C-alpha cells in the first residue's frame, strides 16, 4: 500500500466516527477500528521489503519553491514506530470502546484519536523536515483536543492548554532549528540531511540548530525542565493517556532524536546536554513517581523517568546506546500501555485511582492483578520480563559513559534511577493489589469484561516473550539500530541476551531491586517527609506565570489603547514629524532657488487676519458659536487667497462650500451645548499645545521649502494648459481638469459626497432608534426661543431671491466649461437657494413642496455621471472620454455642447442631493425635539390673520 494512503487513512477516516456515531456506538467503533486496521495492514505489506533492507519512498510536490514537499519514506526506524503507533492504536481503540461511558461522545473521541494517529504516522514517515514539522504540530493540536476531551473538568482544560503551550513552544523552536538545518544543507529532505554529518557539525550554525531542535524534542518527550506538562495531561480519559504516553506523542521527541542521531549526535555538546538532561529526568521522574498516590500520576512520572532513560541512551552517542534505546522504546511501549490500561480498569472497577483507598484488590480482581504484576515487574526490571533486558543494557552503557570527567557519576546516578524505578513499580503492585481486602472501596470492585482486559493481556505476550527469549527481537532491533546509526558507525558486537555473565550491570541491577524493596518498606516515613517538604508545584508556577503574563499583557494593551483620541493623535503627530525630520536631516537639501515675493499691504493684512482668527479660535474654542464665526472668517480668507493667486474657480468653490458648511454647522450646533466642557488638565493641554506647535512648524517648514525651491522637473500641468481647449473643448482649465482630464477623480469625489450624505442619514436613523431619541424628546433649551420662527421679512426675501439664485446656478453651470464655475459650484448655489426656503418657512412646509426624494437625487447624480462615462464605450472609447462639438440653432449664436456637461450634471445633482439630505437629517433630529410643524409658510402672516378675523 502506498505510504500516502497509510498516512492519509487515519486523517480521512477521522470523519467516519463522527458520522457513524449516529448509527450507534458499535458502528462507530467498527468504523474506527477498520480504518486503523487498514492502515496497519497497509504498513505490514511493507514488512518484507523493510526486512529486506529496502526503503520505500513516496514523493509529492507541495510547495517546491520553499522545499516543503510531501515526501515520505519507510525505513526500519520509521517502520518500528509506525507499527507501534498503529498496533497499539488498535488495542487502544478496542479498550476505549469499552472504557468510554454513554455520557462520553464516542464519535468525537475517535475522530480526535484518528487525527492524532495520522499525525503521528506522518511524523515517523516524513522524509521532509518541514513536512515533519507540520505533523509534529498536528500532534500537539490533536493531543490538545484529546487531553481536554472531558471539557467539564477544569484539570482537563488546564492540562490540555499546558500541553499545547509547552509542546507548541517546542514545536516553534524546532521550526527555527529545522530552518537553520535546511539552510546549512541546502535541502529540507531528511535523506539528504542525514548524509551531511560533517557539513552540519562543522557549521557555526550547528549549535543554535541543535539547541532549537533539542528544545522541540525535550518539550515533546517531557524532559527536564519541560517535564511538568506530562503528568497534567493525565486528566485525559485513560485510553488517551495509555496511547499518548506509552507509544506515541511523548516518543515523538525520542524518535526525532533517533532520526537525527547520525548528524547531530557525537559532539561534546550533544553528549553533555542530552545525557545529563536524560539522567536528571530519569532520576527526578522516578523519585517523584514513588510518592504519587494517584495510579495514573505515578505512571505519568514513571513515563517521564523512562523517557529520560531513553534520552540518556541516545545521548551517549555510542551505537550500543542507540541499540539499547531502540529496544527500550519497544519494551516501554508494551508494558507502559498495559499499565495505563490496568490503571483504567482499576478506576473503572473501584471508581478511584487513589492508592490510599486501594489495596487487596488481588482478591477481587485476580485477572487484573496478574496483568498489573507482569507489566509492573517488567517496569521494575525483573528478569524474564522484557524490561529487564533493556534496563541491563542501560546500566551497562552507564558504566561505560563518562560525564563531566567522572567515570563513576553516570553509573551511580543510573543505579539510583533504577532503584527508584523498581521502588515505584513495587509500590504500584503492592499498594493496589496486595494486602488485605478492604471494605471501604468506593464501588464494588470486579474484574472487567473481556473488552477491557483483552488489550493489556495481548501486550503481555511481547513482555514475556522478549523477556525470556530476547534474541527473537535481535534481528529487528539491529535493523532498526542500523537505521538510527545511518552508517555513521559500526553496529555493536553485543547481543540481546538474558545472561551476560557477571558484569557490573548485573550487580547494579541487583542493588536497584533490593534497594527498591527497602525503599518501599520505608514508604510511610518517607512519604511523611515528602508531604511536609516544600517543593515547587510546576503547575502552580506555570499557571501563575501564564496568568501574570496574560494580566500583564492585558494591562499593557489596555493602558496603551485607552481610547483617548488626543493621545492617539499626539502619537501620530510625533511619529510623523520624527520620521519626516529623520528623512530630511539624512538627505541633502538643495536650498532655495526662488526669490521671496514682495509682501503687499493687502496680503499682509489678510494674513494678519488669518493668524489672528486662528489664535482667537484656539483661545475661545470652548464657545462653539464663536468658533463657527471664526472658522467662517478663516474660510473666507482662504477663498480670497485663492483668488489672489489667480484661482477664481477654487475661490468660488471655496466660498460656496463655506456658506453651506456654516449653515449646516449652525444647524448642528442647535443640538450641542453652547460651550464645550473642559476635559483635560492644564498640563495635558500644555503638552498638546507643544505637540500641535511642533506639528504645525513641521508642516510650515515643509511648505516653505517647497515654495522656495520650485519644480526640479517640468510639471504635467503644462500639458493641461496647452490642451485644455483643443482636447477638452473648454477654456477653463480647472473645469476641464475636473470634468475631463481627471474626471475620474471627480467621479470618485462626488461619490464620497453622496456616501457622506447617506451615512449621515443612516446615522440619524440609528440615533433616533436609540436612547438619543428620549434625550431629544425631553430636551430643555438653554435659552429662550424666538417666538417668530419663520419671520415675514425673511420668507418674502427668500421667495424673491429664489428664482434669481436658481438662475445664477444655471448660469454658473453652463459657463463652467469656459469660465469659472461648473457643476460643483452650481450645485452648491442651487442648494443654498433651496436651503434658504427651508430656513425661512421650516422644513415641513418646504418638504411638502419638494417632489423628488433626496436619496434619489444623489443616486441619479451618480448614475448620470457614470452613464455619461459609460456612454463613451459605445463610441469605442474608454470610460469618461469626452466629445464636444459646436452647434448652431438659427436664432441663437453658435454654441458648444460637450459630453462633459452630462458628467457635470451628475456632479450638480449629487451635490444638491447630498446637501439637502444632510439638511433633512438635521430636520429629523429637530422634529423629535418637539418642534411643531407649521402648516404655513409664515408664522405671523398679516393676510391670514385678517381672513381669520373675517371668518
Amino acid at each position: 500500500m502506498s505510504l500516502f494512503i497509510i498516512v492519509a487513512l487515519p486523517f480521512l477516516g477521522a470523519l467516519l466516527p463522527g458520522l457513524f456515531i449516529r448509527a450507534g456506538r458499535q458502528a462507530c467503533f467498527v468504523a474506527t477500528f477498520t480504518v486503523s486496521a487498514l492502515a496497519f495492514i497497509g504498513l505490514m505489506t511493507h514488512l518484507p521489503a523493510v526486512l529486506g533492507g529496502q526503503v520505500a519512498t513516496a514523493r509529492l510536490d507541495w510547495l517546491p519553491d520553499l522545499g516543503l514537499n510531501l515526501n515520505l519514506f519507510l525505513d526500519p526506524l520509521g517502520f518500528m514506530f509506525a507499527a507501534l503507533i498503529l498496533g497499539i492504536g488498535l488495542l487502544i481503540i478496542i479498550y476505549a470502546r469499552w472504557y468510554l461511558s454513554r455520557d462520553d461522545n464516542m464519535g468525537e473521541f475517535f475522530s480526535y484519536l484518528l487525527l492524532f494517529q495520522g499525525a503521528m504516522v506522518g511524523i515517523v514517515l516524513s522524509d521532509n523536515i518541514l513536512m515533519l514539522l507540520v505533523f509534529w504540530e498536528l500532534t500537539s493540536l490533536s493531543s490538545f483536543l484529546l487531553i481536554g476531551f472531558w471539557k467539564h473538568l477544569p484539570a482537563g482544560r488546564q492540562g490540555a492548554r499546558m500541553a499545547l503551550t509547552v509542546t507548541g513552544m517546542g514545536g516553534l523552536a524546532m521550526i527555527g532549528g529545522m530552518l537553520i538545518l535546511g539552510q546549512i544543507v541546502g535541502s529540507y529532505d531528511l535523506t539528504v540531511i542525514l548524509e551531511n554529518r560533517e557539513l552540519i557539525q562543522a557549521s557555526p550554525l550547528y549549535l543554535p540548530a541543535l539547541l532549537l531542535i533539542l528544545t522541540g524534542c525535550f518539550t515533546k518527550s517531557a524532559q527536564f525542565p519541560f517535564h511538568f506538562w506530562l503528568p497534567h495531561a493525565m486528566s485525559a480519559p485513560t485510553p488517551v493517556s495509555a496511547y499518548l504516553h506509552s507509544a506515541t506523542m511523548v516518543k515523538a521527541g525520542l524518535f526525532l532524536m533517533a532520526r537525527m542521531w547520525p548528524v547531530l549526535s557525537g559532539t561534546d555538546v550533544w553528549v553533555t546536554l542530552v545525557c545529563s538532561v536524560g539522567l536528571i529526568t530519569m532520576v527526578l521522574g522516578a523519585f517523584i513517581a514513588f510518592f504519587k498516590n494517584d495510579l495514573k500520576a505515578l505512571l505519568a512520572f514513571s513515563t517521564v523517568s523512562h523517557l529520560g532513560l531513553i534520552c540518556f541512551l541516545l545521548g551517549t552517542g555510542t551505537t550500543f546506546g542507540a541499540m539499547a534505546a531502540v529496544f527500550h522504546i519497544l519494551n516501554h511501549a508494551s508494558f507502559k500501555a498495559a499499565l495505563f490500561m490496568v490503571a483504567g480498569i482499576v478506576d473503572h472497577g473501584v471508581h478511584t485511582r487513589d492508592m490510599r483507598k486501594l489495596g487487596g484488590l488481588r482478591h477481587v480482581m485476580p485477572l487484573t492483578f496478574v496483568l498489573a504484576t507482569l507489566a509492573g515487574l517488567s517496569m521494575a526490571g525483573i528478569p524474564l520480563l522484557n524490561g529487564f533486558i533493556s534496563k541491563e543494557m542501560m546500566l551497562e552503557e552507564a558504566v561505560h559513559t563518562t560525564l563531566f570527567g567522572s567515570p563513576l557519576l553516570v553509573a551511580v546516578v543510573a543505579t539510583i534511577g533504577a532503584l527508584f524505578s523498581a521502588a515505584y513499580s513495587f509500590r504500584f503492585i503492592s499498594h493496589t493489589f496486595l494486602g488485605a481486602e478492604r471494605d471501604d472501596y468506593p464501588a464494588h470492585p470486579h474484574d472487567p469484561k473481556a473488552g477491557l482486559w483483552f488489550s493489556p493481556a495481548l501486550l503481555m505476550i511481547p513482555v514475556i516473550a522478549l523477556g525470556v527469549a530476547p534474541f527473537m527481537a535481535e534481528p529487528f532491533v539491529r535493523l532498526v539500530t542500523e537505521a538510527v546509526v545511518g552508517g555513521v558507525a559500526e553496529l555493536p558486537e553485543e547481543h540481546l541476551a538474558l545472561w551476560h555473565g557477571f558484569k557490573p550491570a548485573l550487580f547494579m541491577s541487583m542493588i536497584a531491586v533490593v534497594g527498591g524493596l527497602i525503599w518501599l518498606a520505608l514508604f510511610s516515613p518517607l512519604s511523611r517527609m515528602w508531604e511536609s517538604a516544600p517543593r515547587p508545584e510546576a503547575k502552580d508556577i506555570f499557571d501563575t506565570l501564564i496568568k501574570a503574563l496574560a494580566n500583564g499583557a492585558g494591562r499593557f494593551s489596555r493602558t496603551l489603547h485607552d481610547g483617548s483620541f488626543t493621545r492617539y493623535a499626539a502619537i501620530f503627530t510625533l511619529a510623523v514629524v520624527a520620521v519626516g525630520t529623520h528623512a530630511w536631516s539624512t538627505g541633502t537639501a538643495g536650498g532655495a532657488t526662488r526669490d521671496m515675493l514682495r509682501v503687499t499691504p493687502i496680503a499682509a493684512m489678510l494674513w494678519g487676519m488669518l493668524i489672528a482668527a486662528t489664535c482667537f479660535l484656539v483661545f475661545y474654542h470652548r464657545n462653539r458659536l464663536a468658533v463657527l464665526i471664526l472658522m467662517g472668517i478663516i474660510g473666507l480668507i482662504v477663498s480670497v487667497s485663492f483668488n489672489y493667486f489667480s484661482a477664481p474657480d477654487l475661490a468660488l468653490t471655496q466660498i460656496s462650500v463655506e456658506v453651506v458648511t456654516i449653515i449646516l454647522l449652525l444647524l448642528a450646533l442647535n443640538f450641542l451645548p453652547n460651550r464645550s466642557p473642559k476635559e483635560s488638565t492644564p498640563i495635558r493641554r500644555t503638552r498638546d499645545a507643544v505637540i500641535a506647535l511642533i506639528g504645525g512648524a513641521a508642516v510650515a517648514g515643509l511648505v516653505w521649502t517647497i515654495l522656495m525651491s520650485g519644480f526640479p522637473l517640468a510639471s504635467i500641468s503644462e500639458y493641461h494648459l496647452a490642451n485644455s481647449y483643443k482636447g477638452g473643448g473648454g477654456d477653463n482649465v480647472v473645469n476641464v481638469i475636473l470634468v475631463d482630464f481627471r474626471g475620474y477623480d471627480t467621479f470618485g469625489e462626488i461619490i464620497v459626497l453622496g456616501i457622506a450624505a447617506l451615512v449621515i442619514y443612516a446615522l440619524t436613523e440609528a440615533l433616533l432608534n436609540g436612547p438619543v431619541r428620549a434625550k431629544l424628546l425631553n430636551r430643555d433649551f438653554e435659552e429662550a426661543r424666538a417666538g417668530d420662527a419663520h419671520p415675514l421679512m425673511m420668507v418674502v426675501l427668500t421667495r424673491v431671491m429664489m428664482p434669481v439664485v436658481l438662475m445664477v446656478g444655471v448660469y454658473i453651470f453652463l459657463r463652467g466649461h469656459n469660465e469659472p464655475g461648473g457643476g460643483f459650484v452650481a450645485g452648491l448655489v442651487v442648494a443654498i437657494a433651496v436651503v434658504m426656503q427651508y430656513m425661512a418657512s421650516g422644513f415641513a412646509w418646504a418638504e411638502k413642496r419638494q417632489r423628488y426624494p433626496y436619496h434619489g437625487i444623489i443616486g441619479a447624480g451618480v448614475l448620470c455621471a457614470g452613464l455619461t462615462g459609460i456612454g463613451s464605450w459605445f463610441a469605442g472609447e474608454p470610460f469618461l472620454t469626452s466629445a464636444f462639438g459646436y452647434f448652431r440653432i438659427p436664432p441663437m449664436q453658435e454654441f458648444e455642447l460637450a459630453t462633459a456637461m452630462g458628467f457635470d450634471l451628475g456632479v450638480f445633482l449629487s451635490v444638491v442631493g447630498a446637501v439637502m439630505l444632510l439638511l433633512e437629517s438635521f430636520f429629523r433630529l429637530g422634529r423629535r425635539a418637539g418642534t411643531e410643524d407649521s402648516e404655513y409658510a409664515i408664522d405671523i402672516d398679516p393676510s391670514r390673520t385678517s381672513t381669520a378675523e373675517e371668518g
Partner: protein
Amino acid sequence: MTHWIIAPVVLPAMLAAILVLVARFHISLQRTLSVAGTVVLLGIAAGLFWQASDGTISVYQLGHWQAPFGIVLVADRLSTLMVLVTAVLAPLVLLYAIGSGWDTRGRHFHPLYQFQLMGIMGAFLTGDVFNLFVFFEVLLIASYGLMVHAGGAERLRAGTQYVLYNLLGSTLFLFALGTIYAQTGTLNMADLAERVATLDLADNAGIRVAAVLLLLVFAVKAAILPLHFWLPASYAEAPAPVAALFAIMTKVGAYGIIRIYTLVFPPDLALTQGLFDTWLMPAALLTLALGMIGVLGARRIDKLVAFSVIGSMGMLLSAVAVFTPDGIVAALYYAIHSTFATAALFLLVDVLRDRRGKAGAWLNDAVPVAGGPLVAGMFFVAAIGMTGLPPLSGFVGKLLILDAARDSALVWWVWGTVLIGSLIAVVGFSRAGSQIFWRSHQVALVQADTAECEDEEANIADLSPPQPALPMVAIGSLIALLVALTIFAGPVTRNLSATAAQLFAPEPYISAVLSMPGKVIKSDSYGDDHADDATKQTDEGGH
C-alpha cells in the same frame, strides 16, 4: 481597448446608485441585486486575473488621455490578484450579512457595501497616486458608514475615532502628494518611477520626506505601530460582516507599500537609502509583538481577534520589509491567507456574540453555545489558521516569511519575534477557546446542579432559536478557502513568484503605461482662435 478593467469600479458604483435610487425601500430587491452584483464582480475579477496571468500589463486610459496627463488604470499581476481576493471575499461576507440579518439593522447597508467595494477595487487598480487618494477617501467614508451601521453608543464612539484618525491619515496623504508633486511634477506612478530615478542626489531631502510621508500614510491603513491606534476598537465594535470585509482594508495599505516601494522608490534607489529600509522592519516586528500581546491580554473575543489582525499585519509587513522577491511572495501569500482567516474569525465572533446570551463577546462564564460542535470546530480551524499552526495556510505563510527573512540583516530578530509571537497567540487563542467552548460545559453542569434540570434545558432552548444556515455556509466557505490555499500552496506561490518578479522588473509596467498613445487632439482652426482669446481673457482676469 477592453473596458473590463474599469468594470470592478463602475459596476458597484452604478449598482449602489441604482440601489439608492429605486430599491431603498425593498430589502429583498436590494439583497438580490447586491448578491448578483458581487457574483458578477467575482466573474470579472477572475477574468482580469486570468488576463494578467501571462504577464500582460493592461492599461486603461480614462478619458483617453495619455499618461501621465490623464488617469490610467493598470491591471498587472499584483492588482488583479488583489482585486480577485476582494471579489472572492465580497459575496461570502455579503451572504453572512444577509443570513444574519445584519443588513436590516440600519439603513443603506447594501449601497454602502457596494461603494466600499468600489473604493477598494479602485485603489487596487489605479495607476495614479492622486487617484489612489480619491479612492482611499471613497473607501474611508464608505467604511465609516458601514462601521457605524446599526448604531449603538460604543460603536459610534469607536467609529468617530476611526474616521478622525483616518482623516489625519488623509491629511498626511495630501501633504505627501503635495511634496511628491513639488519634487517631480507628476502624479502618475509609472511617470513617478521614471522621474524619481533621474532626480539629483544632491537635492534629495524633499523627495526623501515625500517617500517616508507616503509610507506613513500606508502604514496608517496597514495599522503599523505606532499608527495602529484606530484599529482595535473599531474592528471590535464594527458589525461583524463589516469587520470581516475590513480584513481586506488593512491589505490596501500593504498593497500601497508593495506597489509604491517596488515601483517608485525601489529598495536599491540611492535617493532613499537609510530610510524605511532601516526602520520599517523594527516597526513591523513591534507591531507583531504588540498584536500578539493584545491577543494574550484580551478580555473580549472580538478585541482578541482585532489584535490578532494587528499581529498579522506586523507579520505581513515584516515580510514586505525585507524588500526582496521572496519577501513579497511571502507577504502576498500571507495577505491572502490572513484576509480569509480574519474574515472567518470575525464572523465566528459574531455568531458567538449572538449565541452566548448575556456574556456576549466577554470571555466570561456562559452556557454552551447553541450548535456548539460546529461553531467550536470552525473556531478551532480558523484559530489554527490565524495563529499559523500547521497544517493550514497560516503555517505555510509563516514558513515563507521565515524563509524570506534570511536575506534580512535582522534575521534573528524576525525569527525570534515571529516564533515567540506565534506562541503567545497560541496561548491567547487556546485560553479563549477553552473558556468559551469547554468551560461552558462545566458552567452548564454547575447550573444544572443548582437549578432544576428542566429550567436549565428551557434556558438553553431560549438561547438557541433555530439557527439559519446561510451564515454558517459563509463561514464554512471562508475556511474552505483557507484549506484550498493550503493545498494549492505550490501553484499559488508559483503565481506569486511571477507577481514578485514582475514587481521587481518594473520596466514593462512603466513602458506599458507611458508609451500608450492617448487621444488624437485635432487642431481645429476655429478653436485655435477661440483659445487664444480665452488665454488672453484669463490672463487679464488673473490680475
